[in-house]
C-alpha cells in the first residue's frame, strides 16, 4: 500500500502527467474548436453607427451584416452580396425625375437609386430585446426598477428571442446615422449624398431636445426622403448625383441593420448606468455573437445559432489553390465554434504567448522581428529556422495605405505651383531616401511609394510603367532613386545652390513638424535632418504632441510633416481626394493636409471621381498622378507591408485588407494545437528545487553563527 502511494505520488508530480501550468485558458477547453487571439486596444464603441476603427471592426464585423461584403480570396478586391440577394441595382435619375440610361453623362444624373433586395429568412441572434411572451408582447421592453436592479450584464436576462431581418431594419440604421446625438463619423459625408439626410438630422435634434436625456426616440416615425422601404425585403437609397463609391459603403458596418427593438430595449432607465447599451452589446445576424463582453480583459465571440449560413468561396486564383486556400470550398461556415480575444497591451507577453501556442496568430513587433524574420540575399522576407521548426507560417501583404511626407502648399517657400518651389520639392523628394527609412525604421516592412495610389487599387501600375520619373530611374529591372547630383541640380535651379538661398545668401532653413519625442522618434528625426543636410538645407524639428500637430495642420501653419491614410474602400478616389484642392485642410477642414491646389488636377478629379473603373477612368487617373508627381506636394513615402504569423493548425488565412468579417473563414485543428502546446510547455521543475536548495544552504552559515552566538559568553 505504501509503495503504491509512493508510486502514485511520483507519477502525479512527473511533468508528463501534469496539465500545462502556464495555460491561460481552462484545461477543459483544450480540445475545443476555439480560435485564440488577442487585441491590444480596448474598443471604444461597438455600435455600428459609430465604430470606425480596425480594433472595433475586428468584433462588430463578425456580428453585423451589411448588405455587401468583399470576396475573401479574389484580387483586386471585389464586392459580393452578403445579406443581399444580388448586387444592388443602380438606377440613374435625371433632374426632371426621368430614368436615365446607364451610360448617361454624369452631369445629367441628378440622383442615383440603389435598390437592394435582402434574402428572406435571415434571423437575428438570440437577444433579450427580441424576447416575447405567448401574447406576442415584448418581455423586456418595460423593465421595472426591481428587474433592472437584478441585472448586471446582458446575460442576466434569462429569456431571449429572435425575429426575421427585414428591409426596414436597414432603413432604421441609416436614420440612426442621421441622429446627431449618436455622433456617426460619416454623418457629414452621408449628408452630402443621401437625399433628406440633413433635414432628418434637424428633425431628430428638435425631437430629442424635448425628450429626457437617453430616452427612446422611435426613428420609425420619421421619414427619410432618400430611403424607401419598398416591401419586407426590398429597400431603396437615393443619393445625389452619381456616386459609384456608395457601393463600398454598403460593405461597411455603418450600413448594417439594427432592429428598432434594440434601441427601445437599451434606452430603458437604469441599463445605461450598468453599461448595458447598444454601444457595448451588439445585436446582429452574422455568424458570431458576443458571448462575453469584457473589453478590459476578454471578448468572446460564439457561433450564432440562428446564423443563416454561408459557404466558403469556391473562386480563387492559382496561388490560393496551391497553398490550400480552396480546400474548404463550398463548405458551410463558420468553421470555429468560438473565438477568444484576450486583451494584451504589451508586445512581449503577446509574442511569448504566441510562441507557446496560446495565441493562434500574431503580428510581429519590432523587438521580436529579428527572432521571427530574416531576409534572403534577394531581399525577400522569410521565417527564421526557429519559426519554421515550429511550423509557423508567414503572410505578407502590402497595405492599402500610404505614409507620406507632405509639403504645405500654403508655405511661401515650399508651396505653390511656381517653378522655383516645384523644383525645391522635387529636389527634396530625391534626397530623402525612403528605401533607407523602410530598411532602418520598419525592418524592411514597406514598399517605397511611386505615387498616391497603393498596389492593389485600380490605377496603380506595377513595374517600369509605375515609377515616378521625377524621383526614380528604371535600372536593372527595378526602380532606382535618381543620382544625388540631379537633386543638387534641381536645388540650384530653384535658387538654392548647395542649400544657400540666392536672395539672402543664407542657408535655407525648413521646419519639420514631429509628433512625439521618445528615443525611437529621436533616431528618426536625426535621420531626417541628415537627409536634408545632404542638400545643405537646415531642417529644424518642431516636436509637439498630436493635438498641437493637428491644430497646426488645421491652421495651415506647418511646413513639412509626416502623415498617413488608410483606405476606406479600394477605389483610387479614396486616395486622390487627399490632393483635391477643395478638400484643403486649412481652408475647408478637409483631408487634403498639404493644401495642394492645382486647377488641372482638380478638374480631372471631378471627372474621374464618379466614373466606373474603365479605360477612360484609368487614363484620367494616369494624368492626375503625372501632375501630382510633377508638382510633388508630397514625398510619396511608402506603403506599409503587413506581416502576420500563423501556427500550423490555423488554416484559410489570407490577408484581406478590405474585409473585416474574416473570422468565419478561419479553421483551426484543436487536436494538433493541443499536442503542440503539450510539447512546448512542459513545466520545468528543477529550478524550484534549486532555489529551495540554495535558500537552505544560505541559511546554514546563519544557523552556525546563531549557535556560536548563543554559546558564547557575555564577556
Amino acid at each position, binding site marked *: 500500500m505504501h509503495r503504491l502511494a509512493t508510486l502514485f505520488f511520483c507519477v502525479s508530480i512527473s511533468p508528463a502527467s501534469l496539465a*500545462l*501550468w*502556464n*495555460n*491561460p485558458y*481552462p484545461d477543459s477547453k483544450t480540445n475545443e474548436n476555439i480560435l485564440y487571439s488577442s487585441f491590444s486596444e*480596448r474598443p*471604444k*464603441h461597438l455600435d455600428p453607427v459609430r465604430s*470606425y*476603427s480596425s480594433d472595433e471592426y475586428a468584433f462588430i464585423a463578425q456580428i453585423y451584416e451589411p448588405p455587401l461584403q468583399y470576396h475573401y480570396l479574389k484580387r483586386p478586391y471585389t464586392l459580393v452580396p452578403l445579406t443581399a440577394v444580388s448586387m444592388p441595382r443602380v438606377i440613374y435619375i435625371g433632374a426632371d425625375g426621368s430614368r436615365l440610361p446607364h451610360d448617361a453623362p454624369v452631369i445629367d444624373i441628378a440622383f442615383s437609386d440603389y435598390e437592394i433586395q435582402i434574402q428572406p429568412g435571415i434571423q437575428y441572434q438570440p437577444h433579450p430585446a427580441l424576447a416575447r411572451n405567448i401574447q406576442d408582447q415584448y418581455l423586456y421592453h418595460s423593465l421595472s426598477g426591481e428587474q433592472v436592479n437584478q441585472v448586471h450584464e446582458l446575460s442576466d436576462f434569462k429569456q431571449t428571442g429572435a425575429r426575421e431581418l427585414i428591409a426596414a431594419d436597414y432603413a432604421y440604421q441609416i436614420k440612426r446615422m442621421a441622429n*446627431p*446625438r449618436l*455622433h456617426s*463619423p*460619416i*454623418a*457629414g*459625408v452621408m449628408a452630402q449624398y443621401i437625399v433628406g439626410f440633413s433635414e432628418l438630422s434637424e428633425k431628430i435634434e428638435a425631437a430629442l431636445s424635448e425628450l429626457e436625456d437617453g430616452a427612446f426616440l422611435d426613428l420609425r416615425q420619421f421619414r427619410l426622403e432618400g430611403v424607401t422601404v419598398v416591401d419586407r425585403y426590398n429597400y431603396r437609397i437615393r443619393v445625389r448625383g452619381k456616386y459609384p463609391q456608395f457601393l463600398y459603403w454598403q460593405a461597411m458596418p455603418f450600413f448594417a441593420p439594427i432592429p428598432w427593438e434594440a434601441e427601445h430595449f437599451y434606452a430603458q432607465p437604469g441599463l*445605461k*448606468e*450598468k*453599461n448595458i447599451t447598444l*454601444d*457595448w452589446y451588439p445585436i446582429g445576424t452574422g455568424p458570431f455573437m458576443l458571448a462575453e463582453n*469584457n473589453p*478590459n*480583459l476578454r471578448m468572446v465571440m460564439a457561433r450564432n445559432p440562428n446564423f443563416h449560413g454561408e459557404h466558403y468561396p469556391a473562386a480563387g486564383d492559382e496561388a490560393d489553390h496551391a497553398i490550400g486556400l480552396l480546400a474548404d470550398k463550398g463548405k458551410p461556415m463558420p468553421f470555429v465554434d468560438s473565438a477568444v480575444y*484576450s*486583451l*494584451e*497591451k*504589451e508586445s*512581449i*507577453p503577446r509574442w*511569448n*504567448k504566441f*510562441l*507557446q501556442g*496560446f495565441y493562434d496568430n500574431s503580428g510581429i513587433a519590432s523587438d521580436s522581428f529579428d527572432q521571427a524574420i530574416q531576409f534572403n540575399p534577394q531581399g525577400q522576407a522569410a521565417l527564421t529556422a526557429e519559426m519554421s521548426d515550429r511550423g509557423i507560417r508567414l503572410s505578407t501583404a502590402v497595405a492599402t495605405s500610404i505614409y507620406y511626407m507632405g509639403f504645405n502648399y500654403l508655405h511661401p517657400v515650399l508651396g505653390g505651383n511656381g517653378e522655383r518651389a516645384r523644383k525645391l520639392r522635387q529636389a527634396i523628394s530625391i534626397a530623402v531616401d525612403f528605401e533607407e527609412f523602410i530598411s532602418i525604421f520598419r525592418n524592411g516592412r514597406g514598399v517605397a511609394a511611386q505615387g498616391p495610389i497603393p498596389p492593389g487599387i485600380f490605377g496603380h501600375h506595377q513595374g517600369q510603367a509605375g515609377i515616378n520619373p521625377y524621383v526614380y530611374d528604371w535600372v536593372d529591372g527595378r526602380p532606382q532613386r535618381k543620382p544625388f547630383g540631379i537633386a543638387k541640380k534641381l536645388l540650384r535651379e530653384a535658387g538654392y545652390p548647395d542649400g544657400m538661398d540666392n536672395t539672402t545668401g543664407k542657408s535655407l532653413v525648413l521646419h519639420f513638424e514631429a509628433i512625439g519625442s521618445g528615443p525611437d522618434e529621436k533616431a528618426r528625426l536625426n535621420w531626417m535632418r541628415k537627409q536634408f543636410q545632404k542638400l545643405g538645407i537646415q531642417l529644424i524639428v518642431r516636436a509637439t*504632441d498630436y*493635438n498641437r500637430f*493637428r*491644430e497646426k495642420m488645421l491652421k495651415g501653419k506647418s511646413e513639412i510633416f509626416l502623415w498617413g491614410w488608410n483606405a*476606406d474602400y479600394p477605389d483610387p478616389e479614396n486616395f486622390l481626394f487627399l490632393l483635391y484642392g477643395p478638400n484643403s485642410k486649412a481652408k475647408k*477642414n478637409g*483631408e487634403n493636409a498639404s493644401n495642394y491646389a492645382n486647377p488641372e488636377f482638380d478638374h480631372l478629379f471631378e471627372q474621374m471621381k464618379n466614373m466606373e473603373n474603365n479605360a477612360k477612368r484609368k487614363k484620367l487617373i494616369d494624368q492626375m498622378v503625372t501632375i501630382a508627381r510633377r508638382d510633388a506636394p508630397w514625398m510619396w513615402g511608402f506603403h506599409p507591408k503587413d506581416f502576420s504569423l500563423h501556427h500550423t493548425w490555423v488554416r484559410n488565412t489570407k490577408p484581406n485588407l478590405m474585409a473585416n468579417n474574416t473570422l468565419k473563414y478561419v479553421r483551426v485543428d484543436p487536436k494538433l494545437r493541443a499536442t503542440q502546446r503539450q510539447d512546448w*510547455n*512542459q*513545466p*520545468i*521543475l528543477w*529550478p*524550484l528545487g534549486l532555489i529551495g536548495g540554495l535558500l537552505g544552504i544560505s541559511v546554514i*552559515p*546563519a544557523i552556525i*553563527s*546563531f549557535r556560536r*552566538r*548563543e554559546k558564547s559568553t557575555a564577556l
Partner: protein
Amino acid sequence: MIAYIVRRMLYAIPILIGVNLLTFILFFVVNTPDDIARSQLGDRRVTAQAIDTWKRSHGYHKPMIYNGNAQGLGKLTDTVFFKKSVRLFAFDFGRSDSGRDIGYDIGQRMWPSLAIAVPTLVVGILVNITFGLFIAFFRGTYIDFWGVVTCVILLSVSSLFYIIGGQYLLSKLFHLVPISGYDTGTNALKFLLLPVIVGVVSGIGSGTRWYRTLFLEEIGKDYVRTARAKGLSEQRVLFRHVLRNALIPLLTGIVVVLPLLFMGSLIVESFFGVPGLGSYTIDGIQRQDFAIVRSMVFLGSVLYIIGLLLTDISYTLVDPRVRLQ
C-alpha cells in the same frame, strides 16, 4: 478624537477642490475640448459641426472656469469646471467621454487591483520584516554586510526588469505560470502568482533596508538593554520587545498605503493584462478621456487623505501615549 476626525475631513474639502482645479488646469493646458472631441470621434471625415455637436452633448461647449456672460453666481457655476467637478463630491463620477459609466467601471475594476495589491502587500510585509529582523539579528556580521549589499542591488534594479525577468524565467523558460492574463474566482490564482511574486521580490530590497533601520534604531534603546540585562534571549528581545515597539513607524508606512491599494499598479497591470484601476487610469490618459482622469485623480486624493487619517488614528491604537487633539 471625533472632533479631530471631523476637522480633518473638513480640511479635506479645500484640498480636494485644489487638486481638482489643478488637474483641470493641467489637463486643459495640453488638451482643448476640440482635441477631446476629435479623439472620441476619430480623425477621419470629422466635420466642424460634428465636433460642436459632440462638445454640446458632453457639456464641453461652456466657458472653462469663468463665464463672463452669465449672471451672479452663474459666472462660476455655468462653466465646464463646475459642472464636471461638483458631482464628484457626491462620488457621482458620471460617464466617461466615450459614454461608459465610470462608477460602474471603478466598481468592477477595483477587485482585480485588490487581488494583486493585497497579497503583494501582506506577503511583502511578512517577507521584509523577516529579512529585516534576520539581518538585524546578525547585525555587524558578514551576514549583515552582504544582506545590505544585496538589498542595495535589489532596490537599484528597475521594476520593469523584475516584471520582464519574471515573465521570462517563470513563464517562458520554466512554463510554471501563465505569462499574463486574469480570470475570476479561484481561476484567478494561477494568474496572480507571478505578479505577486514579482511585486514581493521587487520590494525586498527597499523594504528590508527600511525595516532593518527601524529595528536597529529600536535595538539601541535602553529598554532593550534592560531586557537583555534581565537575561532574555535574543529571539525574545527581538520578537517580543523590538518588533512591537517598531510598530509605530511600521504603521506609518503601511496604513497610509492601504486605501491606495484600490488604485492598482499602472505598470504591473499593464504587463500582466490585469483589468484593474491602474490600467483604467492609463487608458483614460492615453485616450484623453478627461472624465476618467478627473475621477481617478479625485478618487486617489480622497483615498490618500483617508490613508493619512487612518495612520493618525492607528497611532493612538498602538501607542497609548498619543492623543489626537
